[in-house]
């Protein structure tokens, strides 16, 4: 049973390597295809995607309604739909969840850390989308879809470069067995990783902002993206929380044999650091 638990967790961690968020096929760049037949046959996937479509349409309609003046009822619907949309949207690949998983498997952390990292990623992810939305919607209006996707890709590559560097740093620490390093521990560590992981702007948030600028209801678009981020932070933090608990479970399994536990922790640290490097490289090369 113990072995089965470990195999399950490791298998799902490794399986995620192949399920990164994909690039936009509308970007005009050659896209890499994935073995996604599993998704094609998954009714749960289509159900979740269908719910998101409903929410996307609902937001479109509410923002149009807001153009005719403020109504509390519509405002409350806007908040609720945005929140739920964020929760569901972050379930998919991307949004830094793999980084969160790898990071919390790498070292011992508390549940509060999961909430912090999840929130930093979501805030950065949507914050940058708001900023770009304002730039594209007000300052460089002439930029078309391709131009906008190019800018997002460049930011994605920068994010990938930082994540790769951070992953390499973690790996170096693990190999050298420097468990008690101080420079990038705790808060700083999470803030940096959170910012780097959340740097790739969310296309949904950006579209909401652009649409609200066009309709002249920017404030409501901003509120919508704000609650959308809270929803995303919830899902990302939940994944972090589950990862932390999984790690505790694995530690407890091997606690009887201290030497074995240490070896296992080191292997986990190295594997997850490598995973962070792979995620970073994937972000770069997927966009080249």
């Amino acid at each position, binding site marked *: 049973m113990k072995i089965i638990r470990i195999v399950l967790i490791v298998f799902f961690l490794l399986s995620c390597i192949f399920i990164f968020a994909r690039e936009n096929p509308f970007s005009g760049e050659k896209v890499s295809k994935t073995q996604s037949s599993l998704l094609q046959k998954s009714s749960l996937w289509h159900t979740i995607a269908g719910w998101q479509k409903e929410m996307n349409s609902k937001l479109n309609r509410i923002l149009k309604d807001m153009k005719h003046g403020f109504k509390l009822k519509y405002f409350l619907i806007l908040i609720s739909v945005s929140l739920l949309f964020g929760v569901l*949207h972050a379930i998919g690949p991307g*949004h830094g969840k793999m980084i969160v998983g790898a990071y919390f498997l790498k070292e011992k952390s508390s549940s509060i850390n999961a909430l912090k990292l999840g929130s930093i990623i979501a805030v950065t992810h949507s914050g940058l989308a708001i900023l770009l939305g304002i730039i594209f919607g007000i300052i460089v209006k002439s930029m078309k879809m391709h131009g906008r996707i190019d800018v997002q890709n460049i930011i994605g590559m920068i994010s990938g470069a930082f994540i790769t560097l951070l992953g390499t740093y973690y790996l170096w620490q693990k190999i050298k067995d420097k468990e008690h390093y101080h420079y990038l521990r705790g808060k700083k560590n999470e803030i940096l990783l959170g910012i780097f992981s959340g740097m790739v702007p969310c296309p*949904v948030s950006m579209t909401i902002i652009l649409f609200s600028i066009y309709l002249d209801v920017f404030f409501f678009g901003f509120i919508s993206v704000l609650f959308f981020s809270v929803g995303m932070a919830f899902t990302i933090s939940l994944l972090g929380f589950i990862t932390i608990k999984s790690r505790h479970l694995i530690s407890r399994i091997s606690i009887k044999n201290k030497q074995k536990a240490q070896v296992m922790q080191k292997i986990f640290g190295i594997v997850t650091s490598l995973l962070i490097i792979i995620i970073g490289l994937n972000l770069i090369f997927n966009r080249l």
Partner: protein
Amino acid sequence: MRKFVIICFILFSMQLFSHPHIWIEYAAEVVFSEEGLEGLEIEWTFDEMFSWQIVMDYTEDQDFEISEEENKIIEKEAFAYLADSGYFVDFYVNGKKFEVKKVKNFHAECKGELLIYHFYIPWKVPVKKETTYLKICFFDETIFCEVVPKKNGLKIKKAENISAEYSMPDRITYQLNFWMNK
């Protein structure tokens, strides 16, 4: 403890499920002639947000009316390169996969505030005495777009000398199955 492991299992595997950013509802007409299968007429209806983006970016008046000139721009700027994604269609003849490389007769229009793409995929498969099994799958392998069938969106243009049976796409696989013979 067992429950906890199961919850972990489910939540980790939930990472498999993607976040579509564009939603496409497709309708298809499968065209047969006396020689066999000729091709497919495809219609894609996009979600409101993507429709709005394309109209804002590529039409002059931004009024959901697409002129011939704008149609050409949309084809070039927001359609042609989908060849790299096989236009989200995969064909199989007796289990062998064929990729879509060329389409024709592209035409974009708006119904209300929804953008619709029309195009034709030529795909000639000669009819034989023995049964040929044809399978058509609609799916974006990059998982960026969610491609779903439109309700009652399937039509068949049959030829008299050809017997073509088919099964409707179900909600999960979204694939059309045909059995064709003389």
